[in-house]
């Protein structure tokens, strides 16, 4: 059997980073499928929630691709995407509590992702931690 390529342990796309990419891919898939369904069936009911669902799916998609790619450019794109995700889940989480009338339909981020076991809240934190750990040019002991 072929041995796995020995990669630089600090590379963003190696080891744990691979796992992160798959988790992001699963979220892209589920958020994407959910928002596609909502757009087809329920757009008139809750345009704001559904637009947010679609945007979150898009951000997960960008993050998945950027996390999977190597290089400094991909690292920056990842940082922006995961940063927006972090801000998004916090803002949507707060507003879904204080203005529930605007969030009739649950999206991935409403109530801090409670419908998804709060993974949407934890995921960007883990993502940011991983990105800073694998920052290009960072010297690790």
């Amino acid at each position, binding site marked *: *059997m*072929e*041995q*796995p390529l020995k990669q630089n342990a600090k590379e963003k796309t190696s*080891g*744990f980073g*691979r*796992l992160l990419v*798959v*988790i992001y*891919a*699963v979220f892209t*898939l*589920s958020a994407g*499928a959910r928002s*596609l*369904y909502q757009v*087809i*069936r329920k757009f008139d009911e809750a345009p704001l929630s559904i637009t947010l669902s679609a945007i979150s799916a898009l951000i997960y998609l960008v993050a998945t691709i950027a996390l999977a790619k190597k290089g400094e450019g991909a690292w920056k794109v990842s940082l922006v995407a995961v940063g927006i995700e972090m801000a998004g889940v916090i803002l949507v989480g707060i507003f879904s509590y204080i203005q529930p009338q605007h969030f009739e339909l649950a999206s991935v981020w409403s109530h801090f992702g409670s419908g998804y*076991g709060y993974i949407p809240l934890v995921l960007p934190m883990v993502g940011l931690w991983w990105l800073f750990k694998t920052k290009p040019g960072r010297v690790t002991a």
Partner: protein
Amino acid sequence: MIAGLDLWFWACLVLSTLSFAICVFQFLRGAAPDDFSQGSVLVLEAFLVVYLVGSIIMQTLTDGPSGDWLEYYGYLITAMIIPAGTFIWSLTERSRWSTLVLGLTGPVLIIMVHRMNMLWYYY
């Protein structure tokens, strides 16, 4: 029906938990994807194929899901992509992390099949 959930769900729970346990065990041993971890995920995919056929049969014999049929089958199709995806991933990346990726399949499927049960019986 046990605790308000049908046998599809319970079968999924047993198979998924087994698959998760096998994959995590193999991951902790530091094993790359092998017949055990990959096989357990193929079993999950096979289960979903049977579930799809079963759902179509149930659809013709009964009134179908009490929730939206599009949402129900949307979940089912999405669920079918997951083991297929993690299995293909495990073929391309031969590391212990890939074994853990295979292990993710089970828990995700438990959540999705639970939701499908809700859509079929309660919405």
